[in-house]
Every structure is written in structure tokens, then in C-alpha cells.
């Protein structure tokens, strides 16, 4: 039975990994949005890490986050990898804390927004480092935050619908 569980976990990670990469790829097709730093993306693949953080485990969530960064590194170079890792790790950490906390009364939309904000802040910090211009925080920051509210709203709503459904499937496996 134990091996079975282990197999289940591997299979789950495989599916989720594939899903995260597919979403990352999908995002990379979106052209650079005006006013946003190059490489800043909506973070749709965050849905995957957030689901894992809530239903599977912290390690799984971080594993997929690193996988995403490596994928970005292989396909789009070191800069993209750093952008993905800095945004991803920060937002996954936030997701783990918020989704696993029993006491917090923040709803899915709030969590989605906070994760998106963390994701964008992480990316912004690395963008500042990459270009060597800290003033980017003021140039890009305001729009990125508004952008984060919008995408966080979407991811939060998706999570609310998806998590119960996926959990049912997980338990039936």
C-alpha cells in the first residue's frame, strides 16, 4: 500500500508539473504588456503551485516552482530563470503560509492577490538587479500591483472552484 501511495504522489507531481509547464508556456506566448517589465507574466501557473500548497504538500509546491524556473532557464535563458525563481519562490512561500493556516480568514481571492503581489514583487526585485536600476520599482511598481490585483482575482476564483473538485479526485485515487 505504501508503494502505492508513493506512486500516486509521483504521478500527481508528474501531472501537475506538466500542467505548470504548459501554463508557463502559454504565458510566454503572451506578448510583453505595455508598461510592464519584460518577462512579467500573469502567473497563471501559480494556480498549480497554489493547489499543491493547499492539498498536497509544501515540498511538492516548491518542487514544481523550481521545476518551472529550470524550465524557464532552459527555454528562455538565465534571466528568465531568475525572474521565474524569484517570483515563484516568494509567491509559493506566501501560498503555503496562507493556504495551510487554519486561523487566517483571508478568502481565496485575497490569497490569490497576495500571491500575485509576491510574485510580481519578486520579479520586480530581480528586474531591478538585472538592469541595475532600482528606479524600476517606481516605474513598473504601480502598474504591476494593479495587474496583480486583477490576476489574483482570477487565480483566486479558479482555485475556489478547482480545489474541491481536485481534492475529490485525489481522495478517490
Amino acid at each position, binding site marked *: 500500500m505504501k508503494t502505492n501511495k508513493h506512486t500516486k504522489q509521483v504521478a500527481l507531481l508528474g501531472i501537475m508539473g506538466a500542467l505548470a509547464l504548459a501554463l508557463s508556456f502559454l504565458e510566454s506566448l503572451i506578448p510583453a504588456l505595455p508598461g510592464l517589465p519584460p518577462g512579467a507574466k500573469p502567473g497563471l501557473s501559480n494556480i498549480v503551485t497554489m493547489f499543491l500548497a493547499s492539498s498536497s504538500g*509544501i515540498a*511538492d509546491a*516548491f*518542487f514544481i516552482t523550481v521545476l518551472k524556473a529550470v524550465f524557464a532557464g532552459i527555454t528562455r535563458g538565465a534571466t528568465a530563470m531568475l525572474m521565474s525563481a524569484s517570483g515563484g*519562490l516568494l509567491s509559493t512561500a506566501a501560498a503555503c503560509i496562507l493556504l495551510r493556516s487554519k486561523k487566517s480568514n483571508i478568502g481565496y481571492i485575497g490569497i490569490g492577490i497576495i500571491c500575485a503581489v509576491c510574485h510580481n514583487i519578486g520579479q520586480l526585485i530581480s528586474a531591478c538587479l*538585472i538592469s541595475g536600476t532600482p528606479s524600476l520599482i517606481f516605474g513598473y511598481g504601480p502598474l504591476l500591483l494593479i495587474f496583480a490585483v486583477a490576476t489574483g482575482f482570477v487565480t483566486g476564483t479558479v482555485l475556489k472552484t478547482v480545489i474541491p473538485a481536485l481534492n475529490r479526485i485525489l481522495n478517490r485515487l
Partner: protein
Amino acid sequence: MQTAESNRKINKKSVIALAVCAALVLCIVLADFIKSRSEYSDTTIAMGTVVSIRLFGSDGETTATEIENNINETEKTLLSWREKNSDIERINASSGVAVSVSTETAEIINKALDVSRNCEGVFDITVGKLTKLWDFGGENQRVPTADEISKALETVSYSSVKVTDTTVLTADNQMLDLGAIGKGAACDRVKNYLDSANTDSAVISVGGSLLLYGNRSFNIGIVNPENDKESMGTLKLADTCVSTSGNYEKFFTQDNKTYHHILNAETGYPADSRLSSVTVVCESGVLSDALSTACYILGYHDSLALLKRYDAEAVFVFKDKTVRITDGIENKFTLTDESFVIAE
């Protein structure tokens, strides 16, 4: 949530393992990234012109020094007709005898001759006698007499230059002037050098002729012909060479008439053009230099076929402040000075 419960047990160790892995990966990326992003810039004078260097990569300072050496070397050994024993000086001193030169010089001359053949000789490196006569920017700049010009024109003929891999033969009395392509030649040499250096990306200006090296894209300002302190537009480009020819670079006024330095090698007089400048984007520095001069003389319509032949792109700025851009770089151009208009 049985799955989550049991997973948590397995995961304690793997969390640590993963965290270590992630940290390691991050460190490697960060190191690589710091290396690739450390910037070094320098402005200096080489080859009698202002050289600006911006490097992204490691060993910035030594690389910059090497770049300057390469540029100076280009002038000393290859191009300057003032330098004793440069290839060009020896060619010009020879009279009807083949001179052995470096393969680099032979290649540069070959490229220039090729452009001459394709533009019906309006651009020609055998104009040495002619440019000496006008002496733009020199102490004796003046309008030569018609007689002097027709005499000098007799020596202008790219077809009498014969080049092999290691020798160059010019007609008696003929003088080469590589002034129009010297900066581009320096860019090409620097590009070769950078292939062996620890530089990821760089942008180097040799007196306004630019080498863009590596994958990083740079915003290149095209100078406003009416005010050489401002740009009239920008081009976002990577991994190429850029060169501009304009009537504002060197000129003088005599008897209320202004004469600029871009001579039509067919007529012997400054090119009568509706253009104020042409900026050419091409993978080779020598070619972009040569093409920008040729296109300036040819004018917009006759230039298009020439550019196509060399897979080059260009921005034409007309005297009436209209701008035309070739299709290949149309979406990379941004107008920054509203007093200019992009023509339909």
C-alpha cells in the same frame, strides 16, 4: 485529507533536500547572472575619433583596453594613409605594382569594391585624389576648380583595382581612401576580438559607427541632422552593425554655398541628395559604412535594391523632415522627435 497527512511525513526530509537544491540552483544562476550583467563603460579617443564602449560580462576593464588597441591597430596597420607602412599607405605609394597586404585588408577592399560594383560606382574607395583635393575638415578645405576635379576623377576607377587573397594592385597614380569604411572596419575587428573575450554583450561606438555584440538589445539613437546633440528616433537592435552617413558631419561654406563631405565618385562633387542622413543596419561594419555612404548618394528609391542585395535595412531621413524606414526594421523604429514625420 488522508493523502495530505501521509505526505507530510515523507516530505519533511524532502523539504530540506529541495530547499538545498533550490538554494544551490539559485546561487549558480545568480553567479552566472552577476557575471553576465556586470557592466563596464568607457569613453576614449582612438583612431582620431571618440570611442564609446559599454560591455556586459566579466573582465570589463581589460576587454575595453584590448578593444581600444584593436581599433588603434586597425588604423595603424591597415587603413590610414597618414601612417607610414600601413597597408593603404604602401598601396598608395606603389605605382602599378601589386602590394602584399594582410588578408584582412584584402577582404575589406574586396567588400568595398563589391559595393562599388553594385551602385554603379557612386561609392568608390579610389577617390583618394579627390578627397585630398576637397580636404574636408582639413586646413585647405575649398571648392576645387572644375579642371582639378576632372583631373582627379581620371584616377577614380574601382574596376582597375585587382585584389587577391594577399595582394592588392592599383593603377598608377590611383589613391585609395578608406575613410568612409575605416570605422566599420574597426567594428568588424572588435567583433572578431570579442568572440574570444569574456563578454556576453556590448555596444561600441567608433565615431558613430556602431557594433552591437551579443544577444542583448540596445536602444540606438539616430542623430537629429539639425541638432547633433539630440536623437530624432531610436532603433531597438541586437547583434548587428549600424552606420550613419549625413550631410551634417563635415561641411564648409564658400560663396554662400554649403558643401558637405559625401562626394559622388562619379561627378566629383558632393552628392546632390534630398536626404539629410541614412542609417544602415547590416551584419558587417564595413558593409554598413559603405552602404550608408552609397545610399546617401543614390537616394531613397535607388538604394532599396542595393540594400536588399546585402540583406541590409535602413532609415532614411529627408531634408524636409520626413522619414522612411525599410520593412525589416519598421517595427523596431520609434520616432522620438515629433517634428519629424514618418512617410506613408
